[in-house]
């Protein structure tokens, strides 16, 4: 028997007892101690006499070698039983192993059943094998209890060295364990080599050894393991794979392991185990950078194989392959991992409300929070029914599904091409959007450095995902209402539980969620193609839900809420810049109120830190947009929504009932929400939460009043800041106030009877009209501005010519001499989605204005030349064209008449080659640096947002 020990004093006494109490006594016990700092050496000496002392840098194979050398003198021991200092054998272990060896004379290596120490009940290993990615496969579930389910003696690839019974001859023949694997992985490598040489390895479940897995758990640190056990294990596994796999599959293995390592790194990053991710990379790099080691090891194995005249090599190879783990196993592990992540993300064990209640109950067991209500008979959930049956018998779920289907039917205008209202045509490919976002100088108009709007990043990403900008836009428009519905339902459910233990009744949640989900539609924003209100309405409830995490009792969850809120706030701000202003002001208000109510909160940084981080993160994540916008004198973009100008305006009454001016469903459908929000102030029990909602509404209206007084003067037009987000936020706060107030009202009504009940029923009937009416209006069809195409006065051949290069611009002049003329320059594929905002903010080019003025009043050859230098190839006067301007252009030499589709559109071609580099401009390093900052920031925040899963190690 060979016992290797290093700093194992903790366990050695039990191990020694276990060895002593073996029914089959080992012939001789050789103990090897590798420089233990504790009293393991003395313990062993006391127990077994001599101890081979080795320096602490001795690896396990070397220690075994030393032990074997000790018994080299005669005494024909046939079998060697190897034990670790943390493996305690059951009294009948050796006997069972020897019995099994007798029963199967071909078996050369035998291993016991390893059970967990200290629990003694859970199975650890019953033979191990290795999968194609180098994962150590035991074939057992984690923490599987031993109930006799794996009690057959069977052949395996390898057994753990703790408790391994091996023929001495075989051990010598195979050269012992591989010295290249100092501590981890030598068992699998040995087993593989044994199988390749034709030896048989058996696992004998009747023999039980209890193993503490000290090195693997990191409990025992040796100079060999260092602090990175994962690195060593992984390196060992990769090494084993590379040196033992067949010559034909080696190149494939090399490539596969490299990719596999990258995938595993991503997986580790997703669970925020950065150290282990780096360990993976380090293991791969260290192994691939020492090919000589691998080549030498492979040569050695080849020699061993050639030396032994074993049976047919094919048969041996097949045996080995059958003992390795099945090839689909790594993929199943991958799927399990993804499934774990998804489950952790969606199924929070308990939401904020319950955690708060639990924390409060912990603090004071006699408080209200700890009291559980009497379970009502009606609330007993149906047990043992399938998911489908539960779905169909749940009226709220059915109605939600019907609502979603109706909403998708109502958004049928968004299937296919969507143009109109605030939406310019989409570009042809997703790469156009990426290019527009990443370039620092845009060849639009006369060339401008105004940065691309920030919402292009999520849209470009969606376009790459959905295979085209058109599909991405359609997806955004169609999914806006269902996503808003889902978010609102989740948010209202948590709010209801925060307010009272049982939460709001599901019918109220249904009303609130459907009313809110219809806000972007009935306000008229959806029909006018205004992405700002539509997307922010969908994202806002998720943002609010994440922000509720700030009320969590655990500080680490508060920080995670901060990252999530910050990321969602950045997304919302990219579609509606006013959202950040609102969040900032609201944050200030909340902080002031919180500090005046609870002064002690200032001291704890984890109370005000997360909200501050969330609000401060959005400007960092959006820095490639607002910093260049300020630098290039386009600050108005910080207050404008996406979409073509002019944006629809909204006045005070419109904000209250949730309608843009002259758009949307009938205004009286929005009145019941306001009335209900006001009535919600009456019940005393829920008054404070409803007041909070009204305070939020007040902040929104204050901001709206302030912004409404601002006029932004752009080069082409004047406009007001976009208030679409504020409309959505106001409607959201009114809906929440109505739902929470309704909760309180229900509680009041339940206790009384009579006219109050009738009044409440009447209120409910009125309330139901809002979502029903809105949904009916949406589905039946409303005259929206979204069509399939937009008519352009530009002839097709001019468009084709302008696609040849950026210098082939088309100057379009509209208006009349009496009322004033306006001009624009059309380049490339025209103005597409995302380019409107840039062009609106681009400053006027004085040279071009001068040239156009001269062209329309007194054209001559110099003017034509200057236009060609500015990159204009065609001049178009769309119908109705002012005859005087057209006549003077006709008389100018240097302009040839060009044909147009309609007779009333006048067009000319400049008879000079255009200047191809007319609109080229400098690259802005500031924007490139900021783009990098944004990319890194998003990745970092996204990793921090990921939920914690239960598995810490793959």
């Amino acid at each position: 028997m060979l016992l290797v020990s290093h700093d194992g004093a903790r366990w050695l006494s039990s191990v020694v007892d276990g060895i002593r109490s073996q029914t089959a006594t080992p012939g001789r016990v050789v103990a090897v101690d590798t420089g233990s700092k504790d009293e393991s050496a003395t313990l062993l000496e006391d127990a077994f006499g001599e101890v081979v002392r080795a320096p602490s840098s001795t690896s396990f194979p070397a220690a075994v070698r030393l032990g074997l050398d000790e018994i080299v003198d005669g005494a024909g021991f046939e079998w060697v039983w190897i034990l670790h200092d943390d493996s305690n054998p059951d009294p009948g272990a050796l006997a069972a192993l020897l019995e099994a060896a007798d029963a199967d004379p071909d078996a050369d290596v035998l291993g016991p059943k390893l059970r967990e120490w200290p629990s003694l009940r859970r199975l650890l290993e019953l033979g191990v094998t290795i999968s194609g990615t180098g994962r150590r496969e035991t074939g057992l579930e984690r923490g599987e209890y031993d109930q006799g389910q794996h009690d057959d003696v069977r052949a395996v690839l390898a057994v753990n060295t703790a408790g391994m019974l091996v023929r001495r001859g075989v051990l010598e023949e195979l050269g012992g364990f591989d010295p290249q694997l100092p501590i981890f992985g030598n068992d699998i490598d040995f087993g593989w080599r044994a199988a390749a040489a034709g030896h048989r390895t058996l696992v004998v479940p009747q023999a039980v050894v209890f193993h503490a897995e000290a090195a693997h758990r990191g409990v025992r640190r040796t100079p060999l393991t260092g602090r990175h056990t994962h690195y060593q294990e992984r390196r060992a596994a990769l090494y084993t794979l590379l040196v033992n796999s067949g010559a034909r599959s080696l190149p494939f293995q090399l490539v596969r392991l490299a990719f596999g390592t990258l995938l595993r790194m991503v997986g580790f990053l997703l669970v925020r185990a950065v150290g282990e991710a780096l360990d993976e990379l380090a293991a791969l790099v260290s192994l691939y950078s020492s090919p000589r080691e691998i080549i030498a090891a492979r040569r050695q194995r080849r020699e061993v194989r050639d030396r032994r005249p074993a049976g047919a090599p094919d048969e041996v190879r097949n045996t080995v392959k059958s003992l390795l783990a099945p090839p689909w196993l790594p993929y199943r592990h991958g799927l399990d991992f993804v499934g774990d992540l998804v489950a952790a993300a969606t199924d929070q064990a308990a939401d904020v409300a319950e955690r708060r209640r639990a924390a409060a109950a912990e603090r004071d067991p006699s408080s209200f929070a700890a009291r559980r209500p009497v379970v009502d008979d009606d609330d007993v959930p149906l047990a043992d029914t399938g998911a489908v049956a539960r779905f169909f018998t749940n009226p709220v779920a059915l109605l939600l599904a019907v609502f979603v289907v109706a909403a998708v039917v109502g958004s049928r205008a968004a299937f296919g091409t969507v143009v109109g209202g605030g939406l310019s045509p989409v570009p042809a490919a997703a790469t156009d959007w990426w290019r527009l976002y990443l370039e620092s100088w845009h060849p639009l108009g006369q060339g401008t450095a105004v940065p691309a709007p920030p919402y292009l990043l999520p849209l470009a990403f969606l376009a790459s995902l959905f295979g085209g900008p058109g599909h991405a836009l359609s997806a955004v428009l169609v999914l806006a209402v269902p996503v808003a519905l889902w978010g609102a339902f989740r948010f209202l459910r948590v709010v209801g539980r925060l307010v009272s233990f049982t939460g709001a009744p599901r019918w109220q949640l249904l009303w609130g969620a459907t009313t809110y989900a219809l806000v972007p539609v009935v306000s008229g924003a959806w029909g006018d193609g205004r992405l700002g209100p539509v997307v922010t309405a969908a994202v806002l409830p998720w943002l609010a839900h994440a922000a509720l995490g700030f009320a969590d009792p655990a500080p680490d969850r508060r920080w995670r809420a901060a990252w999530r809120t910050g990321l969602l706030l950045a997304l919302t701000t990219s579609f509606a810049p006013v959202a950040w202003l609102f969040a900032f002001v609201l944050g200030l208000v909340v902080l002031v109120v919180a500090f005046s109510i609870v002064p002690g909160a200032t001291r704890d940084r984890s109370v005000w830190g997360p909200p501050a981080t969330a609000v401060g993160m959005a400007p960092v994540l959006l820095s490639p947009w607002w910093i260049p916008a300020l630098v290039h004198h386009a600050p108005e973009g910080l207050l404008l929504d996406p979409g073509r100008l002019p944006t629809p305006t909204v006045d005070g009454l419109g904000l209250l009932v949730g309608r843009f001016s002259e758009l949307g469903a009938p205004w009286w459908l929005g009145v019941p929400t306001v009335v209900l929000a006001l009535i919600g102030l009456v019940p005393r029990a829920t008054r404070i939460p409803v007041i909070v909602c009204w305070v939020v509404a007040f902040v929104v209206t204050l901001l709206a009043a302030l912004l409404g007084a601002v006029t932004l003067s752009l080069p082409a037009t004047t406009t007001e800041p976009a208030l679409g987000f504020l409309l959505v936020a106001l409607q959201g706060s009114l809906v929440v106030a109505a739902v929470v107030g309704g909760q309180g009202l229900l509680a009041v009504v339940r206790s009384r009877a009579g006219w109050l009940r009738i009044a409440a029923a009447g209120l409910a009937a009125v309330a139901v009209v809002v979502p029903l009416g809105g949904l009916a209006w949406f589905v039946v069809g409303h005259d929206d501005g979204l069509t399939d195409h937009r008519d352009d006065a530009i002839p097709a051949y001019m468009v084709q010519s302008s696609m040849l290069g950026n210098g082939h611009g088309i100057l379009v002049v509209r208006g009349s001499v009496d009322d004033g003329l306006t001009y624009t320059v059309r380049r490339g594929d025209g103005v597409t989605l995302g380019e409107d905002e840039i062009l609106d903010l681009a400053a006027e080019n004085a040279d071009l204005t001068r040239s156009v003025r001269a062209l329309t009043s007194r054209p001559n050859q110099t003017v034509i030349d200057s236009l060609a230098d500015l990159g204009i190839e065609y001049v178009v006067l769309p119908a109705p064209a002012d005859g005087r301007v057209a006549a003077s252009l006709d008389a100018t030499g240097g302009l040839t008449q060009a044909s147009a589709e309609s007779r009333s559109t006048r067009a000319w071609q400049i008879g000079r080659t255009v200047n191809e580099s007319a609109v080229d401009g400098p690259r802005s390093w500031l924007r490139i640096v900021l783009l990098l900052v944004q990319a890194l920031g998003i990745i970092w925040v996204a990793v921090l947002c990921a939920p914690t899963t239960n598995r810490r190690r793959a």
Partner: protein
Amino acid sequence: MTEPVTGSAPGRRTAQGRRFAVNLTTVLAVVVPLLTVGALALVHTEQPTPTRHGPVKTALTSSVLVCPTAREGGRTVYATTAQKKASGRVSIDAGATPDRVSLRPGKVSTYESGPGAALIRGAGDLAPGLVAARFTTKPVAAGECSAPVPDQWFTGIGTGARHRSVLELTNPDKGRAIVDVTMYGRLGVVDVPQLRGLSVSGLDTVQVDLAKVIPRRDELAIHVTSTRGRVGASVLDTFDVLGAGGSAADQLLPQTAPSTSNVLMGVPTGAGRQTLALVNSGADEVRAKIRLVTSESVFAPQGFKEVRLAPESVKQVPITAVLADAKGVLGVVVDSSGPVAATLRSFVGGDLSHAVAGAPVSSATTLVVPEGEKSLVLSGARRVGVVTVVARSLNGKLLGSTRTEVNPGRGVLVKVPKGAVLLTVTPERTPIIGAVLVQGQGATVVPLRQLVRSGLIPDIRPGTP
């Protein structure tokens, strides 16, 4: 043991505290919604209204007038300049090599040109305020020389046996010009492919006999637009009294754009046949009210119902009887619910004359008129104002000067000396619409026109994409 005395005090204090807290929430529950609604009332957004940016005046450096083809005995071109201090030479191009004629303000220069259309070009100081005409005297018929305009309407076209019109297009530029002529008839637009895309080569004249192109019996109107280059257009109208002998011709003057209010001045006195031709250019049905202008008032004649015009159609209104009944009619006013172009055709005393809707004149204007009995008829004043008329003879001798008061709601007749050729009419305080009615040997009407004295530089701004 409990202490009831002190036990109640904390109870009372907490009761007070609770009431205080309750009051605070009640107060907040009232104040916050009020504040919200108050802030909502302050939200004030305005839709951006498209603003008008007028053009800037600039010096006119060149101008051209197109004179129609001369008729018998009417080859002479009479030209003058309305600029007070300008003098110099203009070039007259009538087919062969261009000639130069010197002009002086206050004097009318004459030039005997060839029979074809003549182009008068002024440059520098003489470009603004260039006035020219060509007329015959027996019977008197005026031929106005006008500047090329991108589009114009001729109402009262005929292509039948009795009434024929010939359209003449002259291209003053070297490049080719293309003209589209849209014809309107009694029942709507008349499809005439030959009139679409008429090509006029540089410095060339094209005459289109409409009766040969599309003979019809009804009253017509044409809309002439140049889709490329520019042309000067004029129409020569011939009216034939079949059987009884006698035919007369006169230039039919154009109207720049149909309007909801048309004032046609210049109704010759005497028995004859008068027809009012109206064309509705829009896509909706239009109702037109016709009133008569006299020196006392503007009134609607009794029994005259309002006229209904179908979309894009021409209507012929016979008003001979009405005009015969009324006395001292100076002009006709047509007010309509939609844009309408109008012409009054009078065949009186064996001669044809047209009164076309005039444009308001707000600054001093100069006319060249044929010799003979004539009177200036004015109307369309918006306020009380004064009109000064200065009459000069061919060589610039001052023949007379009058100041007349004009009032809204009535017309004014100013008698003009017989030998006057050059008339300068200056309205003050109100724009006026008017014409000179020459009625001696025959009749003709020369309308007052606002002179083009400056060029325009339009306002240029970048627009939304």
